[in-house]
């Protein structure tokens, strides 16, 4: 034993006692009799030789490994620097070590439980375990003692469990029974959540940190053991409460104690429920809903007893970071108030409950729209909920473990393009069967990827979509190649159009139409999510609105084409049915041999029901595109007025700083913004010259631009109203998103109203006189709350 140990003094106390930066200096000039641990026999002291050799290095030079680059040292920790060295932090805090064995008052235990719960919620919102749950010294002690057996995870010294003298030693029971079981419950819920969270849809370190720093979160301890421990603690507390009540003591102290005991019981019950809910994530949705329903009342009771808690902040410390297998510098504890923690828990529970609704789908199309709506939610759902959605949806490489992704692809193509039912029922002998299979396999991958992307956080979602459009573009090439083959043309017969040049006709090409539609939709999301995520600078708004309007125009024409084909198909179907009926009659009457008017097998018309579904979907789509397009126009005119008035810098103008001209020319910036779309074949990105020509505002007046803006924004509002009045039965694939769709439409209306107000404000300022601009009195801010995420409102005001 060293001298220091024998004296019973903390070794660090010789040269450092407090955790302030000045101690580093004291550590550096410490006494010479520092108890250095012995080194292995194969090590030799080279201190002096090394110093001599080091002196030969020229000043400013570095002797290093050939493969080493200074950039590799960026993540290196600087030892003895309090901001970097977690080990130093740990050593400096040793003299103030918290005694986890000590008895604590009920109120303090209640506070530790609530703080620990807040830390858990903090972890769910992105904090690392080392900054949240692991900062609790009770958690550290339990995990340090844990050797694979639950009983070993106690708050005593390594192998000496603290004996609880009797049930009368209440404060000991509160710590070593109630708090211990609660701590084990927290560890188990973290373990269950963490294992669930390790999936592709959640970005490690971005959404959540699943790193445990080599600590075992009791992964192999069965849930039943933890739950039985919690149940025993609850029973003990209930007995205690009954006994206390029998004594008929009515003073404040007893009332508080009973309140705390109630608080313990309800917290332990909530923990059991949480463990069971997390353990049964793959069970039937009914069981999950039942478990989650029970949480409401418990949460209310937890909140009501929180006021009894008495803070014990010393039970938490970031010094644990110096004891974890972690090459990171010290990071502060991620604080979360109890109120916020409860709100996060409720958000988590509501999110999970909402995800379970997906099982109530009516058609596979309902699921697609649910995912789209899910991805649009603000704020983005918590990582656990997003992960839960995908894991519930895609089980064993099948949708709900029942349907193939191919079924979803076919359902989506059918809903959008209403192809001949024979298309997906061609037999093995058909020459196109193999090519069609290959296409569907590729489409499955793209479609599955799209579902997966929808579960990401918004910023990552946009980035992943930028990658996905390339896959869809190449899928489009495949589909066009497939549908241009002679054998496949029977499924896309030449349909006569109403136009005079009826000899040309039009082909349905359902596969290519579907791929193109999905690709355009992704492009629209990418463009408009840029506004939502605040990616574009204000001077880039006119450009991106212009490009968004262009893509919406392409989408509108595409949907109009599908609609035209649908109506021709519906008319042909009507004709053939009439002809068929007539033929039946004539066959009966005249004994005709064949039904010559019926089309060839490949061109068998779709059912009336399919036609109706597609018609409704297309109508909904055109309404949405129409509103977006009108709003885009309105925003463009409004922005143009601001540019013309000099309130916003023109995108095509030269950079303010001439020294940056080389790399910030408008053309380069244009290319940068168009980069995600530049590799796409169709629709081709317009050239910069085209944009420059079309954005020329020389012939425009501010007033006429504002007039135009007002008219189009009003149009958008009216169209939104019409769209909102569609009855549920007039919409398809919206069974799961009725409420949120209505909410989204309301936010579109608010964007229209907000922009209208901004237009009026600008008009009243009479910007033609430029006095506001010249005196720099105008303030433009972007308002996002309550408005449609794709259409944040620009607010124009004057500076005071």
């Amino acid at each position, binding site marked *: 034993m*060293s001298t*220091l*140990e024998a004296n019973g003094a*903390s*070794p*660090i106390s010789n040269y*450092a006692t407090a955790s302030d930066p000045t101690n580093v200096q004291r*550590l*550096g*000039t*410490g006494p010479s009799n*520092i*108890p*250095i*641990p012995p*080194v292995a026999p*194969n*090590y*030799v*002291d*080279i*201190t*002096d*030789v*090394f110093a*001599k*050799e*080091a*002196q*030969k*290095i*020229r*000043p*400013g*030079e*570095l*002797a*290093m*490994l*050939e493969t*080493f680059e*200074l950039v590799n*040292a960026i*993540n*290196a*920790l*600087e*030892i*003895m620097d309090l901001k970097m060295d*977690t*080990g130093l932090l740990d*050593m400096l805090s*040793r003299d103030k070590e918290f005694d986890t064995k000590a008895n604590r008052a009920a109120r303090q235990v209640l506070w530790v439980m609530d703080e620990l719960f807040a830390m858990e919620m903090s972890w769910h919102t992105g904090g690392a375990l080392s900054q949240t749950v692991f900062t609790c010294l009770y958690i550290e002690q339990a995990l340090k003692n844990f050797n694979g057996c639950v009983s070993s995870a106690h708050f005593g010294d390594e192998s000496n469990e603290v004996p609880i003298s009797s049930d009368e030693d209440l404060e000991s029971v509160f710590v070593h029974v109630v708090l211990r079981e609660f701590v084990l419950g927290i560890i188990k819920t973290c373990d269950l959540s963490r294992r669930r969270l390790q999936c592709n849809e959640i970005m490690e370190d971005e959404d959540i940190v699943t790193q445990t720093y*080599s600590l075992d979160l009791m992964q192999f301890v069965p849930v039943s053991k933890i739950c039985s421990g919690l149940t025993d603690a609850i029973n003990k507390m209930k007995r205690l409460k009954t006994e206390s009540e029998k004594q008929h003591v009515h003073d404040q102290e007893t009332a508080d104690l009973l309140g705390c005991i109630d608080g313990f019981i309800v917290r332990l019950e909530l923990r059991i429920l949480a463990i069971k809910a997390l353990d049964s994530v793959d069970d039937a949705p009914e069981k999950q809903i039942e478990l989650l329903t029970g949480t409401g009342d418990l949460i209310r009771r937890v909140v009501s007893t929180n006021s009894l808690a008495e803070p014990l902040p010393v039970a938490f410390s970031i010094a644990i970071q*110096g*004891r*974890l*297998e*972690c*090459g990171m510098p010290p990071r502060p504890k991620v604080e979360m108030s109890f109120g916020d923690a409860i709100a996060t828990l409720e958000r988590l529970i509501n999110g999970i409950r909402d995800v379970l609704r997906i099982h109530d789908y009516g058609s596979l199309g309902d699921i697609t729209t649910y995912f789209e709506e899910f991805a649009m939610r603000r704020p983005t759902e918590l990582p656990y909920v997003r992960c839960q959605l995908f894991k519930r949806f895609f089980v064993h490489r099948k949708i709900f473990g029942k349907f193939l992704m191919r079924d979803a692809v076919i359902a989506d193509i059918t809903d959008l393009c209403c192809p001949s039912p024979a298309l997906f029922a061609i037999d093995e002998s058909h020459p196109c069967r193999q090519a069609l299979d290959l296409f569907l396999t590729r489409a499955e991958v793209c479609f599955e990827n799209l579902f997966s992307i929808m579960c990401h956080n918004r910023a990552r979602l946009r980035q992943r979509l930028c990658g996905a459009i390339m896959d869809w573009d190449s899928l489009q090439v495949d589909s066009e190649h497939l549908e241009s083959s002679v054998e496949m043309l029977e499924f896309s017969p030449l349909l006569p159009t109403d136009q005079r040049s009826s000899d040309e006709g039009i082909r349905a090409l359902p596969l290519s139409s579907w791929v193109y539609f999905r690709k355009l939709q992704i492009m629209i999301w990418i463009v408009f999510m840029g506004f939502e995520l605040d990616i574009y600078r204000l001077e880039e708004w006119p450009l991106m609105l212009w490009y968004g309007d262009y893509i919406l125009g392409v989408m509108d024409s595409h949907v109009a084409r599908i609609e035209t084909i649908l109506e021709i198909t519906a008319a042909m179907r009507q004709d053939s049915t009439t002809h068929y009926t007539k033929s039946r009659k004539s066959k009966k009457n005249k004994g005709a041999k064949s039904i010559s008017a019926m089309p060839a097998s490949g061109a068998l018309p779709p059912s009336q029901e399919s036609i109706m579904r597609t018609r409704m979907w297309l109508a909904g789509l055109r309404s949405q595109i129409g509103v977006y397009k009108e709003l885009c126009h309105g925003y463009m005119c409004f922005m143009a007025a601001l540019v013309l008035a000099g309130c916003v810098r023109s995108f095509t103008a030269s950079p303010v700083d001439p020294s940056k001209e080389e790399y910030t020319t408008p053309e380069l910036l244009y290319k940068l913004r168009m980069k995600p779309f530049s590799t796409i074949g169709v629709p081709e990105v317009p050239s910069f010259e085209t944009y420059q020509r079309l954005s020329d505002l020389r012939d425009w007046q501010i007033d006429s631009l504002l007039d135009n803006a007002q008219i189009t924004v009003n149009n958008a509002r009216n169209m939104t109203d019409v769209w909102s009045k569609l009855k549920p039965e007039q919409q398809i694939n919206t069974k799961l998103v009725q409420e949120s769709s209505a909410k989204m439409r309301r936010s579109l209306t608010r964007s229209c109203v907000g922009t209208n107000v901004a237009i009026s404000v600008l008009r009243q300022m009479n910007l033609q006189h430029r006095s506001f601009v010249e005196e720099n009195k105008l303030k433009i801010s972007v308002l996002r709350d309550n408005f449609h995420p794709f259409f944040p409102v620009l607010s124009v005001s004057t500076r005071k």
Partner: protein
Amino acid sequence: MSTTNSLLDPELDGGGISQYISVPFIVTTTDGRQFHGPLIGTDREQNIILGDATEKLPIGFKSRRNEGFRYVGMIVVPGKYILRIDADWRALQSNSLNRRRHPQISISDVL
């Protein structure tokens, strides 16, 4: 403070700093901690970069998991806080035998 091991004197003294590169080191700091890891680089002030280092606490501190070692990754130990340096003599000898002069690269070259 420390004495050079007689085993190494004739071989190593004056052999250049490059012979120590990638040799497992134990660097003891003024607070009594030891850092185990291969030497990645050093300079005139004896600031030492160790790669894949583990930290061992001084005597008197309760041992932690993994026999008191804690992985800390790449570290830079400022020369002014270094109390003692130990090197794995077997690796050092093998390094010396196959010694090649490591180029001394200036920071400006790297950047």
